[in-house]
């Protein structure tokens, strides 16, 4: 028996979440049990050495002409066939869009349960902890399955670092109906990558308290002085004040900047899960009782339309 990990990659570029999933896999593996990886796609043999260095002893190169680019149905079917033929004891994937989707496709085919966004797994007891509510709640659950399928919550565990181990690469050719290509990626559009919400060092975020789209001008100005970007709450996107791409939270983007400035944001749990990974949080709110104020590292009590212009003026004064 083995533990099998699905490698999430886009045409050969492997995601860091895959290495985090390897970490969970390594923590559940039994003495002497091999750690194996499923690498779906064409021309990927070159990735096997890196996986070997991260503790994988066998890499299954799952190849077929229709697997040359991502497609959830073809990938799910190919993985399901590999699992039948190689007989692992547990299958683990990263909890990314693709990892969750391919595992769901496989689980549907196998008629077996799937637990996603797992942060801890007790293999002997069949017991696991997973995230619910976008991470604001933990669920302890029993996975009753002859073959456990799990995906690992992104950034809950450290990635396994590269090392010096070796892996054996073996080819697996699934039998795929050409019709499965119906859900393959047919095109890509690359958008210019400026400073993005997910990676900016400072996020100046506004909520209902900003009062309207024009009110964001001062947040824009402060963000540009700090080399950051503007974020917002769902009330703001729902009102059409900002595009959804700026939304922080459970159904928006998760941010982890050095500083998150929450201006006129109350701190609802669905917003909080999107910004709680920030190293520092500063709240600006008229209400000293607002949950965001008590959860923040720093707070200013007052009208953001008075505080922010004063902060901008003070920065400009000091910069001369």
């Amino acid at each position: 028996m083995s533990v099998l990990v699905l490698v999430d990659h886009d045409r050969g570029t492997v995601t860091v979440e895959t290495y985090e999933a390897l970490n969970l896999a390594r923590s559940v593996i039994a003495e002497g049990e091999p750690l194996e990886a499923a690498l779906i796609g064409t021309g990927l043999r070159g990735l096997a050495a890196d996986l070997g260095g991260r503790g994988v002893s066998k890499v299954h190169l799952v190849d077929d002409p229709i697997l040359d680019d991502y497609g959830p149905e073809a990938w799910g079917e190919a993985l399901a066939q590999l699992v039948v033929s190689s007989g692992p004891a547990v299958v683990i994937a990263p909890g990314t869009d693709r990892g969750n989707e391919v595992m769901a496709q496989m689980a549907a085919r196998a008629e077996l349960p799937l637990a996603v966004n797992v942060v801890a797994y007790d293999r002997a007891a069949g017991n696991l902890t997973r995230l619910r509510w976008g991470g604001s709640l933990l669920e302890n659950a029993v996975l009753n399955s002859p073959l456990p399928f799990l995906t690992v919550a992104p950034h809950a565990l450290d990635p396994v670092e590269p090392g010096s181990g070796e892996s054996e690469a073996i080819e697996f050719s699934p039998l795929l109906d050409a019709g499965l290509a119906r859900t393959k990626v047919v095109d890509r559009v690359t958008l210019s990558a400026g400073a993005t919400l997910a990676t900016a060092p400072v996020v100046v975020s506004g909520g209902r308290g900003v009062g309207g789209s024009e009110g964001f001008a001062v947040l824009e100005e402060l963000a540009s002085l700090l080399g950051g970007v503007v974020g917002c709450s769902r009330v703001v996107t729902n009102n059409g004040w900002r595009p959804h791409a700026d939304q922080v939270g459970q159904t928006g983007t998760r941010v982890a900047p050095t500083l998150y400035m929450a201006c006129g944001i109350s701190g609802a749990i669905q917003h909080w899960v999107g910004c709680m990974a920030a190293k520092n949080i500063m709240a600006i709110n008229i209400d000293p009782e607002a949950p965001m104020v008590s959860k923040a590292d720093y707070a200013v009590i007052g009208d953001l339309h008075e505080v922010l212009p004063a902060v901008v003026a003070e920065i400009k004064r000091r910069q001369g």
Partner: protein
Amino acid sequence: MSLRVLVCVKRVPAPGAEIVLTDDRKRLDTEFLGFTTSPHEECAVEEAVRIKESSGGTVTVLTLGPEEAEEQLRYAVSVGADQAVLIVNQGDDLDPQATSSAVAAAIRSLEEAEGPFNLILFGNESADSGGYQVGVRVAFALGRPMVNGIKGIEVEQGSITARRATDAGFEVYRLPMPAVLGVKEGINLPRYPTLTGRLASKKVVIERRELTPERGGLELVELSRPVQQKVDTVMLGRGADAAPRVVDTLVELGVL
């Protein structure tokens, strides 16, 4: 082109700043909470209504939940859905496998009676349990193509072009119809109910389906709240007078 579109929605509580659990820790204490439709699914309903408005056809909403989930179905009608179906579950929440098989069975029976749905929309994931799978399982049961995480839909004759956001931009998929898609918030900005919509939502007759409960393999034991470290908030002052201390702090944190 006239399309039959189905949207599967879930009723979920809308907690505020804190989630409060029941004593047995199996669910949220909802005594003081309102309920809503999962945000991704609200956008799925809006997308379905826009497709109907441009291509013609009908929008049906379906939910599996308690009697009270009528509220979410009626809301969907108030923003443009035509027909609403409730699979009644007065017991505990079902796991993803059991939910999927009940939803798939209901869809089959609706299709037998009134013809196939050209497009079935799900949310990318439900807000409360976030299993990322009910849509995929239902699509597989029905033998239909499914792509999740969709932030753009264009309907053509017999096929659908769908866009999925990635770190670099987006991927494009082209699916033959009948098709299934999982939609993400941000695909559109849902409208508010109109007066005529509200009237329609009061009048609509909700079709009920009995549930034959099955057991899936994922069994909830208990819920808990992640430990949050307590912070001592540093108060930087009140109003505009706080500006110098705010800027000092920005310098200390190395962001200025």
